């Protein structure tokens, strides 16, 4: 018989602000968890990196300094190499059902790996579609990528840009606006909703909507804390989590469209990449996946297989 469950409060570190498009989803998730466990599990969301910075979140959760948190896959690759496949551009299709299916299958492979490191993966969220926002001219064809200095996050995205003939520049998000304004870089890879909230369109008005996403986000908890939750409540948390991912796909797609429309109204020139555009880019990027495979090793093959079958 399960011991009488003690109420657990999970201080949950979120790097984005409570005005972000994911925030209402997260708030609904936390409320639902609390309701359905009758207050035995309480998720205390702390937005805007108030608790820990994004790059410290994983370690803070592992050590128990913070109960739970979320980061993009980039910040987890250092610990779980197999997640390297989840960082690159163009692997999250713009159809929510398929994106959710891939993410769920990847989770099934990587969650046990995370557990070995003291992390309980609650769910992963496929990111919204990417835009590439440029200062001077839009990127439409393959040739447009050539010679551009593009800000991106992470090593694998950098390699992909190189495969497209561009060069990758790492710039702190806080300095991105000025860097674009002053043409330190020509373009930035960004999420459409963040391009709106970060006012990126003001300085980089040529926005190409690439539709597909990159770098899914993981939502996780400290494993010891997780084990203090009764098995029934654990089950409830996982159910609520699965629902939140399933149900909010349309919300994210709608929000993205809204962001693009808003930016257009504010003077941005939005170009929506066609199926042919995306196919051409993907073909160019194929060799990078082999490079990732070389770096990750055979333990990553199952993840790669999932992506291959669905992309």
């Amino acid at each position, binding site marked *: 018989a399960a011991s009488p469950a003690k109420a657990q409060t999970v201080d949950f570190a979120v790097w984005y602000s409570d005005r972000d498009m994911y925030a209402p989803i997260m708030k609904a998730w936390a409320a639902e968890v609390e309701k359905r466990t009758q207050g035995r599990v309480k998720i205390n969301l702390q937005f805007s990196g108030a608790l820990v910075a994004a790059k410290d979140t994983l370690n803070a959760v592992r*050590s128990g*300094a913070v109960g739970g948190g979320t980061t993009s896959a980039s910040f987890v690759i250092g610990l779980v190499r197999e997640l390297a496949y989840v960082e690159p551009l163009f692997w999250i299709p713009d159809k929510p059902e398929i994106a959710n299916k891939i993410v769920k299958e990847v989770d099934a492979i990587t969650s046990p790996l995370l557990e070995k490191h003291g992390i309980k993966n609650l769910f992963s969220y496929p990111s919204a579609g990417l835009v590439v926002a440029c200062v001077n001219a839009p990127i439409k064809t393959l040739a447009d990528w050539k010679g551009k200095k593009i800000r991106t996050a992470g090593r694998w995205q950098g390699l992909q840009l190189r495969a497209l003939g561009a060069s990758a520049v790492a710039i702190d*998000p806080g*300095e991105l606006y000025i860097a674009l304004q*002053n043409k*330190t870089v020509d373009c930035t890879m960004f999420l459409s909703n963040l391009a709106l909230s970060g*006012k990126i369109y*003001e300085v980089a008005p040529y926005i190409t909507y690439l539709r597909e996403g990159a770098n899914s986000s993981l939502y996780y908890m400290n494993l010891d804390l997780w084990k203090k939750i009764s098995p029934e409540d654990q089950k409830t948390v996982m159910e609520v989590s699965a629902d939140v991912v399933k149900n909010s796909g349309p919300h994210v797609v709608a929000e993205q469209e809204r962001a693009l429309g808003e930016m257009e109204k504010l003077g941005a020139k939005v170009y929506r990449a066609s199926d042919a555009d995306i196919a051409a880019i993907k073909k160019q990027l194929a060799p990078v996946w082999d490079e990732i495979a070389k770096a990750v090793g055979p333990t990553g093959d199952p993840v790669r297989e999932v992506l291959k079958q669905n992309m």
Partner: protein
Amino acid sequence: MSAFAGFGIFLVVLLGLFVLRTPVGVALGMVAVAGVAAFVSPGALSQLASLSFSISSSFIIVVVPLFIFMGEILAATRIGGDLFRATELWMRRIPGALAVGTIWACAIFGSVCGSSPVTATTIGSMAIPQMLKRGYDKSLALGATAAGGTLGILIPPSIPMIVYGVITDTSIGHLFIAGIFPGILLATLLSATAVFTAVRRPEMAPPITERPTWPQRWKALGAIIPVLCLSFMVIGAIYTGLATPTEAGAIGAAGALLIAWVTSQLSRAIIMRSLDRTIRTTAMFLLLLTGGFFSSFMLSRLGIPQATSDALLSLPVPPWAIMVIINLVLLVLGMFMDPGSIIVIVIPIFLKAVQNLGYDPVWFGIIVTIQSEIAAITPPVGFNLFVLKSVTPGANMRIIARGSIIFVVPMLVCIAILTAFPDIVMFLPRLLLGIK
């Protein structure tokens, strides 16, 4: 335990450790260690190690040693003296000319140095003896230097602004450019204070009687051209897109070396001495940040920033009155804490409320920087007072504090003006950087 009680206990314990002469960074770290172990969990202490690596491996922080190095190299050259000589020759007809000259020499040196004590000592080591020789009152001479030195952190580059930017995720480039007008405004207000003092009590600042020749004046002016070039280079590098603010630090340091070399003032000894001071200050600074961030983490885990924000916003007063309250709290804390600790500990607590009131974080960054300037010249804990005491033979804290305290007034006036007319802060960033 209420949030305010928790924060109060935190401050009292911190002050207790200061009394024991525990280094400030260690004191911040120890309070957090105790708090985290008692109220969070002993396991969470591992955050201390994690922070010590993540802070020191952050690219924005790389700029800190670079700007410190730039200031140290220039401080080791004749440039400080040249600056004072030029302002002294050109402003000699103004009442309190030497004090006014000191303030503007500090303002110009501040455009190439990001630290307030370094600015105060560099200009002060030349200006203070000159003022005393010509019969200036000791407290006016020291006070004007202490206050003028603080312009080093309002006029870009500025180390405290970097810290503010890192903590609040505000663009350092925006903060730098936003500091230019308020810096000139404050230099003017400080000068007015010096003039006012000299007019009211002429015995404190005897007029200059000797008359420099025009060639002397032009020569003095020529000597400051390299500094102005460097200053334009650093801000220009950011503005033209040659570099991010972080990289401008490296360009500035290299430029300082170049100036020192071209004017034949560079030697291996100077480089090594400047580097040595740079790394020690950097280590001090990063330890302060590590301890501060850890304290801040503890306070967040205890929900104190949120509670403070809620409490402030629930007050039945208009937004500007809340800003007055926040400024008063900063003023009092600034008497007892160093600017670094205030920014790391207190700002996260207030930022949320300030933003909810509709103020721009860049604007608040400038207000906070001016509060840091006040903190640097108010007793009992004021770093510009400390450094001037250590470079001026026979000066005691009472005299320095008496002289500098009158300069708190123009600083508060400056805050009031910027609160009434926020556009003074936001105008340049909007004009140059096109933010809406």
